[in-house]
């Protein structure tokens, strides 16, 4: 069965410092993986996606993620956090025709 585990429910960083949001997946075959962001009182926006092409995926707003099959990980990173990055981030795996969401990581960015 497909599943994702987000290892941190909350991450706090200072503005200008790197961001690392961790995600591990479980999949019986080559997965499609996504990161979505949800700003307060907003909908879900796609940050980036992995669909078996390049293992290093670049997304919007300077985010990127690396697919590591050996570690079953798809961690989200950004070199320098901005105040506007404060939001809830969801790691998502695609299973047949539905998406399975992780529990989410709330990113706080302090000035």
């Amino acid at each position: 069965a497909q599943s994702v585990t987000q290892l941190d429910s909350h991450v706090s960083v200072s503005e200008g410092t790197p961001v690392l949001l961790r995600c591990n997946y479980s999949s019986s075959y080559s997965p499609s993986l996504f990161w979505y962001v949800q700003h307060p009182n907003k909908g879900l926006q796609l940050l980036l996606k992995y669909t078996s092409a390049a293992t290093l995926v670049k997304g919007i707003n300077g985010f990127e993620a690396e697919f590591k099959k050996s570690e079953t990980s798809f961690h989200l990173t950004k070199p320098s956090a901005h105040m506007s990055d404060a939001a809830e981030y969801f790691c998502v795996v695609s299973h047949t025709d539905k998406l399975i969401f992780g529990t989410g990581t709330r990113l706080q960015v302090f000035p």
Partner: protein
Amino acid sequence: EPEVTQTPSHQVTQMGQEVILRCVPISNHLYFYWYRQILGQKVEFLVSFYNNEISEKSEIFDDQFSVERPDGSNFTLKIRSTKLEDSAMYFCASLRRQNTEAFFGQGTRLTVV
């Protein structure tokens, strides 16, 4: 840029009443979904819809729930007799093909009182 739109943005209803949540998916998309997110909890899959029929549904999607695509444009979620625990944010999503990016609407916040 095409987007998924949902109406209303907020809905307050009394327990036991019927509600219909409406969604207009992106026009050339073929797969349609409803998800919900209870406050503070994870996003949960409710139902997927393809070729004018339900393709998969979760345990949450019991007989009180139904979906419809009445006119080739709208995609609706009906809850026949709402319960307090139905209070959540409901998201509609659509995909062009399987395993591609899902486009989500802004959500409908349903509050059952």
